[in-house]
């Protein structure tokens, strides 16, 4: 596509991977899990293992989009007293560790409470690249969109198998970085079988936008990552990495390496990008 695409920082990293003939790997871990320092070590292990984009979860009391694995991990982080400022300091430590773009995935209220402008400025100040906002739709996002634009932060909104073409258009037009396509109708968590809803969603999304499309929800191993990388620009992995984080950074790194190998299979598929 020749239109001007709002690649931002995460989108540039994804396109760089795509240019190498492979899918990009986006890895998620919540801040503060299994402990504050352990969380930082886990995220660094994802970087060492080869992720292209980092997603740090901001633990929240009412995570309606999350399944049991991420719920439990974020409850542990909150019970240990993790604060929003600790998420920011986690971002700072991870962002200074490498050039991998660092996004934060957060439910909306903690940002609204912090102050949207103030958060955007502080977050950009510690090296954050942007936010993924699972319960904020662009229709309600004017304040965030303005603050993100002012601070040159990525805005990753979600599209879903239930989204109409009209909503996909509206949503992707508001994104910078990439658009997060949820592969299933459901919450986060590893799934055995591949989603048959994701390929048509990616196809519908690519029909209206040139912005990179990342597919998440349910991806847990190298084979699944390879299958998704065949049709999507980026593969997003969360719960499986959270499970690995319980066993420490070495386990996170091992799984990340497997996933990174997965997105490097099937080089022929990248030609279609």
């Amino acid at each position: 596509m020749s239109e001007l695409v709002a690649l931002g920082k995460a989108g540039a990293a994804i396109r760089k991977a795509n240019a190498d003939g492979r899918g990009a790997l986006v890895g998620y871990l919540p801040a503060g899990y299994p402990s504050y320092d352990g969380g930082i070590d886990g995220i660094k292990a994802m970087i060492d293992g080869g992720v292209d984009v980092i997603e740090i979860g901001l633990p929240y009391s009412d995570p309606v989009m999350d399944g049991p694995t991420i719920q439990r991990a974020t409850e542990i982080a909150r019970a240990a007293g993790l604060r929003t400022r600790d998420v920011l300091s986690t971002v700072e430590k991870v962002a200074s560790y490498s050039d991998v773009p660092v996004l934060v995935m957060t439910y909306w209220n903690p940002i609204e409470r912090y102050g949207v402008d103030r958060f955007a400025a502080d977050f950009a100040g510690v090296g954050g690249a942007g936010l993924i906002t699972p319960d904020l739709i662009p229709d309600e996002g004017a304040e965030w969109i303005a603050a993100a634009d002012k601070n040159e932060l990525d805005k990753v909104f979600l599209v879903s198998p239930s989204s109409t073409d009209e909503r996909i258009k509206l949503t992707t037009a508001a994104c910078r970085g990439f658009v997060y396509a949820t592969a299933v109708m459901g919450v986060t968590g590893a799934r055995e079988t591949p989603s048959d809803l994701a390929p048509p969603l990616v196809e519908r999304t690519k029909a209206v936008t040139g912005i990179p499309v990342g597919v998440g929800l349910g991806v847990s191993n190298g084979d699944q990552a390879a299958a998704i990388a065949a049709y999507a620009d980026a593969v997003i992995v969360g719960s499986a990495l959270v499970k690995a984080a319980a066993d420490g950074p070495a386990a996170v790194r091992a799984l990340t390496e497997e996933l990174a190998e997965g997105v490097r299979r099937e080089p022929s598929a990248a030609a279609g990008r």
Partner: protein
Amino acid sequence: MSTVLPDQLGHFGRFGGRFMPEALIAPLDELTKAWQEAMADKEFTDEFERMLREYIGAPSLLYDATRLSDVAGARILLKREDLNHTGAHKIRNAIGQALLTKRMGKTRVIAETGAGQHGVATATACAYLDLECVVYMGEVDTERQALNVARMKLLGAEVISVKTGSRTLKDAINEALRDWVASVDKTHYILGTAAGSHPFPAMVRDFVRGIGDEAREQSLELLGKLPDAAVASVGGGSNAIGLFAAFIPDTDVKLYGIEPGGDGFETGRHAATITAGQVGVLHGARSFLLQDEDGQTMESHSISAGLDYPGVGPEHAWLAETGRASYRPITDAEAMEAFRLLSRTEGIIPAIESAHAVAGALDIAKELGPEATILINLSGRGDKDMDTAVSWFGLIDGEAAGRE
């Protein structure tokens, strides 16, 4: 009569809206369309009204509470929603949404419940209309309200005990939303209060507004005029908005929402969301909520399980901000005193939720004076609260006179 608000996206001023996963936006749009079409379809509204009349016993009585009035020092009228089938106003909303579920061609219903009243109402509506019913209830609440769990099961519902988070009402809502994201093709979520994402606050209001519509007509019949004040308890806010909706345009009628003050506002152990909360986003809408400095939801406390919720419906936030209604807390102790007072003066044992409204009205009566007529929504009956009353008053065996 229709209310202008909310706007097309569900905003009441700066409150309300849709803070929901994208996966639910298209289903919420479909629901909004189905609800608006249904409300404009005389066949649907006639059927709903017939069910209210023949099945739940509407219109509920407007009762002139003369002995309570003597004590209060003003004329008190009670809207007897406690006499509805299943014992509370909640059945109006459950029947309305269940009927809408049928109209949308969906076969499965999910619901959340705290004390179990909305769960029982939904299980009842599903039995009546032949729908599959799953009720999410916090584990703590299933233990506190074992009798209501049994009622729901007897009515054919599956009750799922929610073991995540604080294991109470807000977590039951979270779990119901998680179910709904994965099942929305065939499933309707019957939210139990006038809160949440658009269209729920407006839709629930429309299904329960019969409370105020009936009471307004009954007041004109009984008094030849409107009451001076309308008073209702506010948790999520469905019984209050059900009473208020008809009176919002009648600017001479003062509207009072009574919030659960728990152990007292100053102790921090309460659920007085508007009185003590701040603006934020919870469960799909912007409103007042109890939250900490970081925007994490705080646990609420009230002796009344039905009011024990850290959020409140967005229309109440708007009514408070515009000054059209005022909101004030009543403590557990004040509510229980009113619970006993109504029992002894009128022979009516109210739900503890409704006892908050009675307690609030006693204060309002002093403020408005002896010429005033005060309408109270007696939203539910107190059978479900007898265990609480037994331990509060020490009613069984040698527990002396309790807090006499």
